[in-house]
């Protein structure tokens, strides 16, 4: 997608989001039954923000494309793998009864190994062993530091 068309698309996206916020704020309860001052209605500020997002979003969509370059140009394959691994660990495994050190060690092992191989390192037993050692040591240290030193409950 070209920069200008992407910017236009994002501009309309912002305007659409702003419009949704504006409508939701307008429809929000104004607490008239509680006899509050109408200028303290809870939807006032979100409504103003929604209107500003519509205005500035449309400005982004219709203006000439900026010279600012988008940040980064990573591959979608790598992005998808990172997203899948992170979501499986944080949203799928944590908080379901498995010990934290075990789930975090498993996540780190798979992620470290996968991305080292994608970066061109040959998949040999030494790579697997070093990745496993790093993952296990890091998981144990993190668990110990958070739980025993800083008295934080682990998920």
């Amino acid at each position: 997608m070209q920069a200008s068309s992407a910017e236009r698309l994002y501009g309309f996206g912002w305007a659409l989001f702003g419009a949704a916020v504006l409508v939701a704020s307008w429809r929000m309860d104004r607490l008239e039954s509680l006899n509050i001052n109408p200028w303290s209605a809870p939807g006032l500020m979100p409504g103003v923000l929604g209107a500003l997002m519509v205005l500035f979003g449309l400005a982004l969509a219709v203006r000439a494309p900026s010279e600012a370059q988008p940040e980064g140009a990573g591959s979608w394959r790598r992005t998808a793998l990172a997203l899948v691994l992170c979501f499986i660990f944080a949203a799928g495994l944590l908080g379901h009864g498995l010990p934290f050190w075990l789930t975090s060690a498993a996540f780190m092992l798979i992620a470290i190994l996968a991305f080292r191989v994608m970066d061109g390192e040959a998949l040999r037993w030494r790579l697997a062993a070093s990745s496993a050692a790093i993952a296990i040591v890091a998981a144990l240290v993190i668990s110990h530091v958070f739980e025993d030193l800083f008295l934080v409950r682990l998920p």
Partner: protein
Amino acid sequence: MEGVAFLGKSLAGLLGPWQILYALGATLTGIVIGILPGLSATLGIALMTTLTVKMAPTDAILVLVCVYVGAIYGGSRTGILLNIPGTAANAAATLDGHALARKGQAGRAMGISTTGSVAGSLFGVLCLATLTPLLAEVALKFQAFEFFWLALLGVLMSGSLTGNDPLKGWLMGFLGLFTAQVGLDGIHAHPRFTFGTNELSGGIALIPALVGAFGFAEVLMVLSEPAKKAMINAVDSILPRISDVFRYWKTILRSGAIGVFIGILPGVGEDMGAWASYAAAKRFSSEREQFGKGSIEGMMAAETGDNSAIPGAIIPALALAVPGSAPAAVLMAAMIIHGVQPGPMLMVNTPQFAYDVVAITLIATLCILLFGLVMVRPLMWVLRVPRPIIMPIVFVLCTLGAYAIAARVFDIWVMLVTGVVCFILRRQGFPVAPFVLGLVLGDIVDKNLRRGLVISDGDLSPFFTRPMAGLLAALVILTVLAQIPAVRRLVARVT
């Protein structure tokens, strides 16, 4: 004299063995965070906030300020050796730092970085001690009208100056302000945008959202790109030279003043402090042709500017509850978590705390001097660790950091969703810092707009006719107008 007594008491309280250990450990952690490209001071402070939640408030703020100062200082190492700024604040120093490294003077560049950082921080500490009470006294006269404009100015200035495109920066600021509106409203406790869920009624917690915006988004940015191999050349003597201070004292004073001033401006931050100091040094230098090619004066100006902006950014956070930068915003949030309420009443209710922060910043400065002298070479190994190893570990820390504040799984979801949204938006050039400022200042903007309108019974004129409110309103309007090309063309034609 009263201030000196407060400062003496603060210093005496911070020189216990545990406090010294905390300061050294936190500064070292900050330097490592700064050295690792992608990990920012903001993320470091957010993660450490979760670790320090059970500590005494002064100890916790000691740890957080040391991480802050350490991270901004440490980031120049990566810039010098790899030409990749460790944090955004070190981009200006990278220009001459890496040029010096290419000439075989990487150690000299690191020595200048230490000299400039320490000088800048000390200058900033002096300003922090003297300007915070003055600003707080002025702010005691502020009402809802002034606080509304001040907070809005912070978000808009951050949007104008922290990215390449002000329009995108402002949109991110508005998104942050909107995100802060989710949950029970601050005046009537009416649920807003909660969709009937209990979790959203508590609002979007700041730390999980910040960890997502600065941590998870960065993990995705780094892992989505193939790793580049770090090529580290031999390093010459890293010792800072006292002669540099005497030779460039004018540059140091000018850069310190510019850094503090930029730091005080709401929402602008250390990176602008460095660039503005660098530009001023180049303008007044007799060797300006050397700038960008390994100028010692340029490097000194940039490092003095970014480090003096740290205490500068803390000044409005303490005196006005409007932070000067994204890391200062997280620091301010941590103060609130620890039961300290920043703002004009801080100097009335708990003046000792303000001087505790001055003493803490001074101790952090001494720590970076110590580590600048003895730990530069050992810390180089951090740069050799491949990023596919670091980033999964950082993600585990992000997950724990998001969860640990309230032990809620929902906060992990907040971190994940914020991270993915910020990752997608960053890819399109939308900066994250204004989002953070918006998130922190959303409550102030909302409450003060409505309070102001209630006081004036819907009359907008006090927002413009009260002297300070009028000045701030004019600044807000100018900040927006100055970025509109048609207005700029008109001004250029007239002048």
